[in-house]
């Protein structure tokens, strides 16, 4: 768990504080996405957590300990750190890169070797094939897999990720997002994730913290932020298509009416598909009812246009 309280940081010569009395609590095992326009203080906030930047005021407590009471080097060895440019050590093999923190912590060689193989396999890279390779021999996506494996090496309870997929092509990015979301959730890591991409925030975040000029504007689940933006800034930031983005968060099986039998002629959609896909299918086929297919293909309920509408009816921000 990470508890940030009244955190303030002002860089010399800056007109306003980079972080301005920020208070934020990230529950254990949750992915908290910090998002906002350039200069909103999201990266500064993240870097204060592992003391890459020292705050002027306020506190950060990680798993019960105030980070200011911990030696920065020790602190950082127990917090995973992934950056957009990845920063793999080009002169070290993939195995040595992954082993960075275990070596700093003085693990014995056998334990390190076993851990490296375990992690490479976890991030989907064959240890036998990649252990001895060098970073320049890998693609951007593979490098970031190694970057994440390296951050996970000493099994830190908390991970900081600064736009980890920013430099990766869109198709690989979506794939890595899904994959890492699964891995990190399985490992129950508490994660602070910085991005400027709202779609990534919605996809990755259990909670999204929207920042502007160093201040926290809204902190809530993706669903709640899309349904009820706190102000005009958030509304503009999440985009005019926020109703569609909300639909993308809900699966057809979660929104279906299981009590209603599907009409025989109704086209069907898989239960795991999102309501956004269901809506697209309804629009393209000119129907307002779809049968929802279960894992074995049999219809398990129906999803209707009316049900989708009921879920997307939002109040404009001004009514709050």
């Amino acid at each position, binding site marked *: 768990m990470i508890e940030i309280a009244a955190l303030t940081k002002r860089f010399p010569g800056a007109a306003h504080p980079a972080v301005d009395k920020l208070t934020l609590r990230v529950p254990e095992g949750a992915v908290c996405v910090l998002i906002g326009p350039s200069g909103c203080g999201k990266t500064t906030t993240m870097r204060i957590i592992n003391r*890459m930047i020292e705050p002027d005021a306020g506190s950060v407590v990680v798993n019960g300990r105030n980070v200011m009471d911990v030696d920065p080097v*020790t602190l950082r060895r127990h917090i995973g750190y992934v950056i957009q440019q990845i920063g793999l*050590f080009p002169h070290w093999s993939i195995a040595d890169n992954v082993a960075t923190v275990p070596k700093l912590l003085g693990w014995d060689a056998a334990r390190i070797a076993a851990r490296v193989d375990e992690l490479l396999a976890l991030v989907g890279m064959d240890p036998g094939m990649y252990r001895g390779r060098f970073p*320049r021999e890998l693609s951007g996506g593979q490098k970031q897999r190694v970057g994440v494996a390296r*951050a996970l090496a000493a099994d830190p309870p908390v991970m900081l990720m600064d736009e980890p997929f920013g430099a990766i092509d869109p198709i690989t990015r979506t794939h890595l997002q899904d994959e890492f979301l699964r891995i990190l959730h399985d490992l129950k890591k508490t994660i602070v994730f910085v991005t400027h991409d709202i779609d990534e925030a919605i996809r990755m975040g259990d909670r999204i913290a929207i920042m502007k000029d160093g201040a926290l504007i809204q902190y809530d689940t993706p669903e709640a932020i899309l349904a009820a933006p706190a102000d005009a800034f958030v509304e503009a930031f999440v985009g005019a298509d926020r109703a569609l983005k909300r639909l993308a968060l809900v699966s057809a099986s979660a929104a279906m009416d299981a009590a209603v039998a599907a009409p025989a002629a109704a086209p069907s959609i898989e239960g795991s598909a999102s309501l956004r896909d269901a809506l697209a299918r309804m629009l393209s086929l000119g129907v307002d009812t779809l049968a929802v297919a279960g894992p074995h293909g049999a219809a398990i309920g129906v999803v209707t246009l009316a049900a989708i509408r009921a879920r997307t009816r939002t109040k404009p921000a001004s009514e709050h």
Partner: protein
Amino acid sequence: MLLVEAWQFILAHPERFLSALWTHIALSASALAIAIAIAVPLGVVLSGTRRAAQFAIAGANVGRTLPSLAVLALVMPIMGTGFVPSLFALTLLALPPILINTYTAVRQVEPDVVDAARGMGMTRNEIRRKVELPLALPVIFAGIRTAAVQVISGAVLAAYIGGGGLGDFITAGIAMMALPQLFVGAIPATLLALGTDRLFGALQRAMTPAGLRS
């Protein structure tokens, strides 16, 4: 014909030749070793600063443009003649390329790599030792190679201020218009410089971490 006479000269005076060759190598190697010991740590420290670095690098660049003979000539009135003044002058000659290359090499290490190292909990010293220096090593070695060749060539001129070495044969050869004797100094000095360049080229490749070799 001249070459044969030069060879006969060496055979006639083997001790003189070997002693001159030895002085030449000792002078060059000592100057290079001292310059490395000063310029590499200095370059690393300077890479972390800004104003002091600009000052030092500007100085080094001026130093690099000074002709070798001028450096020797400038040292003589202050320190007199002999081995030590020659060593001092040659060390001065070797400093700029090593200093400039070390400074540049460390500065050129990707900031993201250093940020990642720091973010994973390496101390300042660990970052220097495990990340910055290994990545800078090929470029530092290129500077050492340049300096080594310069020093070996420059050491020929040490004869002018009584430093000894192969330059003695050259100055004597010129003074007496004895070409074979001139060759006794000039050819081994040239071969020494070429050989050193090759040797350091090989060392430079060996020092390049495997992950950086293309």
